[in-house]
Structures are given as C-alpha cells and as structure tokens.
C-alpha cells in the first residue's frame, strides 16, 4: 500500500475478491480445499444434518412462541445454522465458548437446554444456565463485551500451562459484523495478539446489524482486519457446515497448541428479522433474501446425502419427526415454565450476605404479605 492507495480497497497482496473457504457447494457438491481436508463418515454427516434441522425447528418454535406472546422477543438464528453447528461441533469438551445472544445452535452443541434461552427471552431469568457446567458462557447482550472476557479467559488457560497438552483448551468468542466496530472488539484483538492468546474469534457476518448493512461498519472484508493486528484471518462460507467445521477445528487446534489467535469470518445471512420486534421490509430488499435462500445451509447437506446415497430410507422423515417432537416439548416447557417469584430479585446479587439486599427483601416480603392480610 502506498499513501495514494485507493481508500477502502487494499491492493496487493490481497486478492480483489476475497477467497471463501468452501467444502460443500449450495448444490450439495463436495469440493476439496488444500488447507482444510475433511474426512467425515456418513454417520457424521447425518448427525450434522440432524443438528441443523433440530436447531432450525427449535428456533422456529421460539419465534412462534414469541408471536403468541409467550416470549418477549426472539433473535432468530435462521440462515446461520451451519456457521453455528459447524463451529460448535468443532469444539472439544475443554474448549470454552463466549456467545452473543443469537448462538442457540452453539448452545445446542454444548448441551444447553433450549428452554434456558426461552426463559431468558421470556423474562424469567437473565441467564439461566451454569456456564461452567457446559463450558458455554452466558449470553451477552451488550455488543462486543464478551470478546474481551474470552480473551482474558484464554490468557488464563495460557497461564495454566496446559497448551500443547491433552488438557489444553481453546476459547472461542462469537460476535456479529456490527460488533466489529465496537472498541471492546478491537481491544480484544490487541490483547489477543500481544499475548498470543489461545483464542478463536468467530465472526458471523450475517450482512446486517439490525438495519445497517456491512458498509456501515467496514470498507474492507472483515477477515482482513486480523492482518492489521498481526494474526491470521480468513473467510469461510458460513452456510457450509463442512467448511465451518474444518476451518474452526484447525483454528482451535492452533490455539490449543499455543499458536495464538485466529479470526474466522463466517459469511452468512440473517434470513429473518433482527429480532421478532424488527421489520426488515423497511430497510432491505426481498430479492436479497431470495438470493440467499438458494444458499440454504440445510438443503445442501440434504442434497449431498441424497446425491451420495448416504441416508437410509425414512431418514429425513425421522429427523423431521424428531425435530417436531422437540419443538412440541419446547412449547410445553415454555408454557409450564414457572415465574421466578418477586423475592428472587434480591438473590445472588452478591456472593456473601449483604445487609441492604436482606433488608429490602424482608421489607418487600412484608409489604406483599400485607395485601394478603387485607384480602383475607
């Protein structure tokens, strides 16, 4: 680059068109990539397919529950299933995940009951699961904050001296394209690179931050930002579960073996509204959505299974039935979910007893009881 280089379009050595790592085309054709060999058994492919179908079904059911007023709002993962399942299934048990608020598919991979997320958006809790039990941190609503927590966690793993041993753990931080503008995200890149932290930055570029298209956040492809900080960045087809799996596996392995951070930009699309309260018709064209529909993450796996005759008869129906059953169970679980009860507000604010919490809790309990006495 020289001082007169065209702004926003870096010249050599980067190619003009960003390279996209892809192992499965939208038509379901397997392609090879020299850096990311991937050998999956038929069963593994079927398992990925099942994951994709189930998380989509749970998501659709969550949207429906929201429309019916049972949940306050829902950030749908529709369209991003492959990015989440691919990266989520690349994780080892020891690895630690720091999600945003949309990673329901990764949560599934970590064994977090989807009802917990429903509880959060229903307004029953602010979190709901024990992050240490699943190595899946709480959802973070404040854009970008979690990337710093992830970096610090990775620095902790580094200090444990376990990198390169069987107890090594990588940390993965999820965030969106919009989040890449936040100071916290830039600072996490700086810390990660300076300390060579064992972390994978997994950016789901779903092209939109609510109503703002990517151009409002960046003049260069997001993955290329990593170069400026001094660590590798690459772009993967975020609708290709194989590619997401292979790329994330490799980046995680690099982290675990002490080779430092990687930025993965999963190029995908938010097929739904930002959340159920959003109205995308105000800011984007139907044609764009239609074009991305053709790149559906699930259809291509199905096509691959069919094309290569890897699914026994009745397999697709079986998965569909199972997903529907899980959707029904989710609905029942949501409808029968107990409210937290007013006095829960004062609990777990501090680790040790706190006089003001105790006082306010007791006063409020007495206040509530006074109504019961009145109505007697």
């Amino acid at each position, binding site marked *: 680059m020289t001082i007169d280089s065209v702004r926003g379009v870096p010249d050599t050595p980067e190619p003009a068109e960003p390279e996209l790592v892809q192992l499965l085309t939208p038509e379901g054709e397997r392609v090879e990539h020299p850096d990311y060999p991937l050998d999956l058994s038929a069963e593994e492919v079927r398992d990925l397919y099942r994951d994709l179908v189930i998380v989509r079904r749970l998501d659709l059911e969550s949207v429906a529950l929201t429309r019916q007023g049972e949940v306050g709002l829902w950030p749908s993962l529709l369209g991003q299933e492959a990015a989440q399942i691919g990266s989520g299934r690349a994780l080892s048990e020891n690895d630690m995940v720091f999600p945003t608020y949309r990673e329901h598919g990764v949560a599934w991979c970590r064994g977090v009951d989807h009802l917990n997320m429903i509880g959060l958006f229903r307004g029953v809790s602010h979190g709901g699961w024990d992050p240490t039990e699943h190595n899946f941190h709480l959802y973070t609503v404040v854009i970008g904050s979690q990337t710093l927590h992830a970096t610090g966690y990775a620095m902790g793993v580094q200090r444990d001296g376990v990198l390169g041993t069987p107890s090594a753990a990588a940390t993965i931080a999820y965030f969106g394209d919009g989040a890449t503008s936040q100071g916290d995200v830039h600072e996490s890149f700086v810390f990660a690179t300076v300390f060579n932290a064992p972390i994978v930055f997994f950016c789901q570029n779903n092209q939109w931050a609510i109503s703002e298209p990517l151009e409002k956040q960046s003049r260069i492809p997001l993955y290329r930002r990593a170069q400026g900080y001094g660590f590798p960045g690459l772009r993967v087809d975020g609708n290709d579960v194989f590619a997401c799996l292979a790329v994330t596996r490799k980046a995680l392995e690099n982290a675990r073996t002490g080779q430092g951070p990687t930025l993965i930009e999963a190029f995908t699309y938010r097929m739904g509204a930002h959340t159920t309260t959003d109205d995308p018709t105000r*800011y984007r064209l139907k044609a764009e959505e239609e074009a991305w529909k053709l790149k559906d993450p699930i259809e291509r796996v199905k096509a691959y299974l069919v094309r290569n005759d890897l699914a026994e008869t009745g397999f697709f129906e079986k998965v569909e039935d199972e997903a529907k059953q899980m959707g029904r169970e989710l609905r029942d679980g949501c409808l029968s979910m107990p409210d937290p009860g007013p006095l829960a507000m004062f609990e777990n604010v501090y680790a040790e007893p706190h006089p003001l919490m105790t006082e306010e809790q007791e006063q409020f309990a007495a206040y509530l009881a006074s109504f019961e006495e009145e109505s007697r």
Partner: protein
Amino acid sequence: MTTLTLGKAMNEGLRKAMENDPKVLVMGEDVGKLGGVFRITDGLQKDFGEERVIDTPLAESGIVGTAIGLALRGYRPVVEIQFDGFVFPAADQIITQLAKLRMRSLGSLELPVVVRIPWGGGIGAVEHHSESPEAYFTHTAGLRVVACSNPLDAFAMIQQAIASPDPVIFFEPKRRYWDKAEVDVESAPADWAPLHEARVVQPGEHATVLAYGPSVKTCLEAAAAAAEEGRSLEVIDLRSLNPLDIGTVVDSVNRTGRCVVVHEAPVFSGFGAELAARITERCFYRLESPVLRVGGFSAPYPPSRNEDHYLPDLDRILDAVDRTFAW
C-alpha cells in the same frame, strides 16, 4: 393543535430543530432508513439526507466522541443511544470529555451536544434495555440532565436542549412513547416553559409527590386514587434534574409538610437522595415527616417477569404517602 404520541412529538421536535438550524445533525445506530428502533427519527434521513442524519458504526464511544468533534467544528449533533443500558460504552466520552471541555478551555469552547436516551423499564425487554442511569450523569458537573414526561414537553424540550450551548443528557420515557396528547406544533420557544423549570402538574394540599419521566403519569394516577379517599396530593414534574428547580419544590413542601419522591432508579444513592437532603435542609421546620423515597430496589433490574414488582406502582406510592401521614 395536533394529537401526537410522545414518540411522534419527539420526531416533530427534531424535525423543527433541523429545519431551523442547518448545523443540527442526528446520529446513532439505525437512525437512518429504519428511523431508529423506536422510530423517533422516522423520515428524517429521507428529508434531510445522509449527511445530516447519520447511521453510525455500532460503537457508542465512537458516536459520542465524534459528536464532540463535530460540535468543535460548529455542528449541533443530536446523538441517539439505542437503549439506556448502552450509554455505558460512551460513559468515558461523556464524563471525562463532553462534560469538561468548556471548563478546561476557560469558557472558549461550546459543546452543544444532545445525548438522547430512550430510558426506563416497563416494556418487557431483556437485560440492559430498562435501566435508569440518570444519577451517574446528574453526578457529573458540566452536563445538563433533563427528562420529558409527556408529548408537549417532548416536542418543546428537545428543541430547547438542542438550542442549549451546553451538553444535555436527554432522557425519554420509552414506555410512554405511545401516550398521546394535544401538541401545538406551531408553538415557539416563547410559548414554552424554560427548559430547567419544574412544573406543578397537579396542585394539592396534603403532601407533595416529586417525579420525572415515566413516573409522572404513575404519580398522577396515585393522586387521583388518593383524592377518592379525601387526600389531596400535589404532583410536581421536575423535568430538569440538573440544574434542579429546587424553588418550586421547596414552595410546595413548605405548604404541604410532607414529601414522597418517586423514580424507577434504585433508591440507594439515587437522585431521590439528593432531593431528600435538599428538602430536609430547606424545609426542616415545616416537615411533618421525613421525605420518603419510592423507587427501584437496590438489586439489578430484574428479568421482565418481575418488573412490575420492581417498578414503583400506584400501591407503593400510596403506601409511602400513608407512611408520611402515620409518622
């Protein structure tokens, strides 16, 4: 007169300010095509262009920091923080820079930046979307802090805030965005009360109730309920928290001898503490009972299923009023 929601009145006020002064800019996340998540800036980009209504990158510190720079270059930026809980990434720019540049320049700089914050609870939202951070800002010298409670004030106060040569933190009661009232959109500054003047919204004799923003309506409902039991409450909408129109407050409490302060923010170290202290200092011999405070609890804003318990409601306000009489 036109019937407007509070949200639409905000929109009309912003529009007027932009028409009257080409230096007025609107900036924030999703304020352009979308018109903001609450549609407060709806249509402004279409009418005033992308140079004046700016969809910014997703970075609050960046938004306020660049607004400061634009102000230094003679613009009057009106910044939208999407939700109250997201003002914190910008807190550094607001507290260490925006609030202090005038003083540091010995008065040579003006910082006419307005930071609009859709604020408070009651809409069933997730975490960080229902916060009441006003005390952090009233505690910071150099900032003016105001809160509107109704459509007419929304329309007028936003224009007054934009006209102010000082930085203004402008709190908008988001759960009241859909409340309607008659607004004269042709009215001009001469028709409006000064920005930093409190207003007696319900005259009364037996006790004074102080409120601002979303709590004003709740207090008026409480006053109506109290009236049925023969108790006359005077409700004051503070409108401005810093500077504070303590004169209006003191006049009232000296007459009634009793005072209840209501806000959604936690009571502990909240703005009500400032009010209680000042009233005690100035009305000590007229007070029949201590100033009582009703507000959010000292716990974090709860998951929405509990927010009706957390927010001061009619019963808790009347309970506090009763206690001032039982003293």
